[in-house]
């Protein structure tokens, strides 16, 4: 095969490949992207029940309970709005009151939030960037990393 035909091989394979990959990626990004909201924002935007989102904020101190049916219930707050969350699994090791948390799931028709996954971090000094941003947006953030109450 001469260099010219070789170039044709490269182009002939890569153009359809990229087209297919681009199409798949665009469809998947349109349908599968999960939006992140802080509690205030979620309330304000009136996120419809059933839509999969990530809800991030602080675990409200004193709000964590373990219902007898298993799982865990707590409230996610940005110190302005607080939203009750139910989660059927076990929380990550670093799930603590007053710490940053991200709950992935959907609002129920009653205004509560049913989480399918709860993320806390591997490290207790870590704050998810979106949670920090949500706290800043709600005007409840002090530089130095400590959320104000």
């Amino acid at each position, binding site marked *: *095969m001469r260099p010219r035909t070789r170039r044709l091989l490269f182009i002939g394979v890569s153009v359809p490949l990229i087209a297919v990959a681009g199409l798949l*990626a665009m469809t998947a990004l349109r349908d599968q992207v999960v939006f992140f909201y802080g509690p205030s924002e979620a309330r304000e935007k009136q996120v419809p029940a059933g839509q999969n989102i990530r809800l991030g904020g602080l675990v409200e101190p004193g709000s964590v309970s373990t219902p007898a049916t298993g799982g865990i219930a707590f409230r996610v707050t940005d110190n302005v709005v607080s939203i009750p969350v139910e989660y059927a699994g076990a929380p990550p090791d670093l799930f603590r009151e007053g710490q940053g948390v991200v709950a992935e799931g959907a609002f129920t028709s009653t205004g509560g939030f049913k989480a399918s996954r709860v993320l806390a971090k591997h490290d207790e000094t870590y704050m998810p960037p979106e949670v920090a941003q949500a706290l800043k947006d709600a005007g409840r953030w002090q530089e130095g990393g400590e959320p104000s109450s």
Partner: protein
Amino acid sequence: MSVELGHFAAILAFTLALAQCGLGFTAVAGSPALAASARAASAGALAACAVAFACLVAAYVRSDFSLVNVVANSHTDKPLLYRIAGTWGNHEGSMLLWCLIATGFAAAAARFSQHLEPALRARMIAVMGIVTAASLAYLLFASNPFLRIADPPLQGADLNPLLQDPALALHPPFLYLGYVGFSVVFAFAIAGLLGEGAGRDWARAARPWAIAAWCFLTVGITLGSYWAYYELGWGGYWFWDPVENASFMPWLAGAALVHSSIVTARRGGLAAWTALLAIITFTLCLLGAFLVRSGILTSVHAFAVDPTRGAAILAMVAAAGIGGLALYAWKAPKAADDAEFDLLSRESALVVNNLALTVSCATVLVGTLYPLFAEYVFGAAVSVGPPYFNLTFAPLMAAVMLLIPAATLSAWRRAALAPVARRLWVAGLAAVAVAVWVGLQPDAALGPVIGAGVGAWLVAGAVTDLVVRAGGRGFRPQALVRLPLRVHGAAIAHAGLGLLAIGACVELGFRREQMSPMAVGDTVLFQGARITLERVEADEGPNFYIDRAVLRLEGPGGPRLLMPERRFYPAANQPTGEVAITSTLRGDLYVAFGETLSQGDGPMRWSMRFYFNPLINFVFGGALLIALGSALALVSAVRNRQVATP
């Protein structure tokens, strides 16, 4: 004292790396004395870096709390193994490990390249000098582990308990051996591009390094994934998280590189493309380090991070990527590329697979970086999860895997379809049989059925390849043993990939989980097993307290006791869980000990989470087979690197 010695040694290593770079470039003109001193500088940099590393390890072993780094990450109660592993269980220490590995690779590449053309060798040594000098500069100026504390405390803050684990002690060294190993291939490619018309020479010399780096990276990712599986207690092993993708992208690009370098080293073809892949792969390694260290993306594996450090790494990503690509655009059109091959040939099949691997790597890149894009362009905080990757990466990878058996059975230069098809009908039958079998299971979805079939096709294709090469119908076991190592290596790695695909698809499609609140004496039924909570006991480890649940399992995989634990590390003030796993041929039964449930009047109850992960050991076993296969190919490539075929 030894701390200052270590600090000084790191500075010395930095200056020697600069010298290596300067001497290397001046030696291109042809002075053997200058070339020898460039090599000596690289050996000196390695020795100095080793001293620096030994000093830091010594500080950790002695628990020298006059070092900021030791205070933040160690504790006197920590077992010796984790005091040592704690050296690289943090940002600064891990950067020193990176520098040690980089100087090691630089010295080894300088030493074991005597068969190279002198100018090419001098350029390669000089480029490695740039890589090590940049790493050491980053260490000294942005993340120095040798900083003293004015007022040393009596005790440290302890290493994050999640990291006090054997797999995770080994995970960073292997990952870095992979990342930094690709810097050697990058240096060879840049050296080849800087010289005129370099093609086959640099690729033949760089191929062993590429295979070694890829093998290390495979082991590193597998260790990390296995750790996530048994340590995090989520029942899963791969979450398409940005930090995971950060290591997976160079692995994909590296896979393409390892394969295109076959064509360049054997046939002298695709030299420019191989150089491009070498640049892309190393840039992705640096990008991975940036994503992990800057914390710019939300990750489930994120540790506390310092964004200012990200900027320096980003500058290195830009330098390697933009500089490398600019050089490529300037020089690549002149690269000699004289291999003749037909549209139907092993070379063509490798080109198609290479492009598909690269595009699938690009889809992972898009999914990983899209949240940044969406934030800056739309101002929306979003995340991209597993569904995206299952919809984009998986079909492309399936296409790659469909082609592999046909490619390995095709002849170089010119192949014909009919003989390949005739040899592969058994593999086709095996694929259909496995797909049908998976499809007949309850709740089968299309994706896992196709994936498992493709995996079986790959395993059967690898076996077919060996049988055909060992005589086909006149198959003799002696002939199988006498096949070249690279043939065995390729077959083992491809079969490993097939097993991994089967395991991943079956696990994804048929995993089960159940959460049960249990009191002592309660029995639950899960996946045909009867599991009874016998007792919950308290215990103590070397630096942690234990709550241990003792569960009796009857049924498949039993009878036996399962003992998941909850641990509390007082020094770090952090709880962790230890799951209990029992493996059978069908899969793993996995128990995590959850929280204590609020008690009403009744007995104390705990939440127990049970997972059944079918064929999950195919995933880890398949990944290890890929590493083993590439290790065999490495031996073969080292033997062949000096033999120039006409």
